[in-house]
């Protein structure tokens, strides 16, 4: 049986802050807006325990901020669907097509705000320990290690913030980073430094995961001294970088060498009527505020694009 076809003014792919902001602006312009999210509405920040640098909020949990923006967008008529997965897109068709498991959506304007995905630990044995010591979500799984030894690998804000969060559970916490310094906010680093139960292992790489049936230790390598050691740990939380979610668009949109969509401050991609917003596009700074800014620009320019199409006919 053929799928039902539905027409939308704007389809937004991705429900992080960029996508949600686009939905809010587009909704307020009385456009029919559909936002499709395959994983978690809120994207990267839904796991953020305490956001302290978003203007207007001294401190707010990531999921609460996301919930607020989503409710704002929905109050203006935007529809957020986090259960109907996209299976194919055709941005060269007129109108453009976004096919999901349940529907074929046709639209003249698309905003790609598909964000980033956590990079996985590149060790051949890692799958064996998934959920049995190796984790990617401190909010979800930190509780399993009350009073235990926890290791965190990574050197950016995600790793340091996760380490600070996990201190509420850990008897002892190690942060493992291959470089000699963190690339994280100083205030977060200070919190970590001042915690006596936390120990940082710089210039350190993980070479092997060991233990049966669950993770019990890590084989470590110090890339400055060449020393190899074994670290006993009950858990390893992984924050080693992000990859852009652009596989679906690689034959349609121009991507840079990192896989990000080439688009400037006007969020315009190489296809008229297709915009890229948030971390997924090429840009020097990636923050919540810049994601919200992109979402705004993309929605406003998408609306102008739709107007230009009407004027042509």
């Amino acid at each position, binding site marked *: 049986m053929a799928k039902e076809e539905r027409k939308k003014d704007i389809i937004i792919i991705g429900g992080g802050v960029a996508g949600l902001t686009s939905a809010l602006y587009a909704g307020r312009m009385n456009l029919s807006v559909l936002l499709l999210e395959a994983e978690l509405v809120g994207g990267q920040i839904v796991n953020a*325990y305490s956001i302290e640098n978003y203007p207007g909020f001294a401190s707010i949990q990531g999921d609460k901020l996301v919930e607020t923006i989503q409710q704002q967008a929905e109050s203006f008529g935007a529809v957020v669907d986090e259960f109907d*997965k996209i299976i194919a897109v055709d941005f060269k068709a007129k109108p453009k097509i976004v096919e999901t498991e349940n529907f074929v959506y046709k639209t003249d304007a698309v905003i790609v705000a598909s964000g980033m995905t956590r990079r996985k630990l590149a060790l051949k044995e890692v799958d064996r320990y998934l*959920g049995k010591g190796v984790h990617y979500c401190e909010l979800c799984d930190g509780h399993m290690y009350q009073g235990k030894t926890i290791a965190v690998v990574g050197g950016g804000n995600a790793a340091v913030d996760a380490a600070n969060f996990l201190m509420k559970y850990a008897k002892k916490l190690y942060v493992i980073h291959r470089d000699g310094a963190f690339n994280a906010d100083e205030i977060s680093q200070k919190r970590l430094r001042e915690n006596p139960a936390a120990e940082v292992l710089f210039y350190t790489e993980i070479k092997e995961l060991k233990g049966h049936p669950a993770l019990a230790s890590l084989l470590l390598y110090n890339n400055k001294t060449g020393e190899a050691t074994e670290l006993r740990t009950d858990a390893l939380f992984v924050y080693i970088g992000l990859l852009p979610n652009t596989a679906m668009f690689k034959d349609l949109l121009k991507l840079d060498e990192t896989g990000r969509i080439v688009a400037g401050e006007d969020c315009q991609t190489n296809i008229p009527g297709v915009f890229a917003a948030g971390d997924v596009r090429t840009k020097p700074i990636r923050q919540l505020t810049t994601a919200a800014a992109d979402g705004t620009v993309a929605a406003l320019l998408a609306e102008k694009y739709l107007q230009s199409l009407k004027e042509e006919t």
Partner: protein
Amino acid sequence: MVKVYSIPNCPWCHKVKKYLEANHIEYTDFDIEADETARTECYRISGDLTVPITTIDGKSYVLSFDKPKLDALLGLQAS
């Protein structure tokens, strides 16, 4: 009765519950951080404390948000 074993602030737990609500399925939510009995039961069902766990009979269960498996467990029409 559908049972969901979860913890607060777990985004995948929220997604499972939203999915049940969107499909008008009644469920009971068990917070395994606050409820020791629920924690023990969660471990008995799955051998682990990773959440969310969704179950009906306490034997077969679905870990996390796995839409095809949830649809099969709940008897929802496949999309």
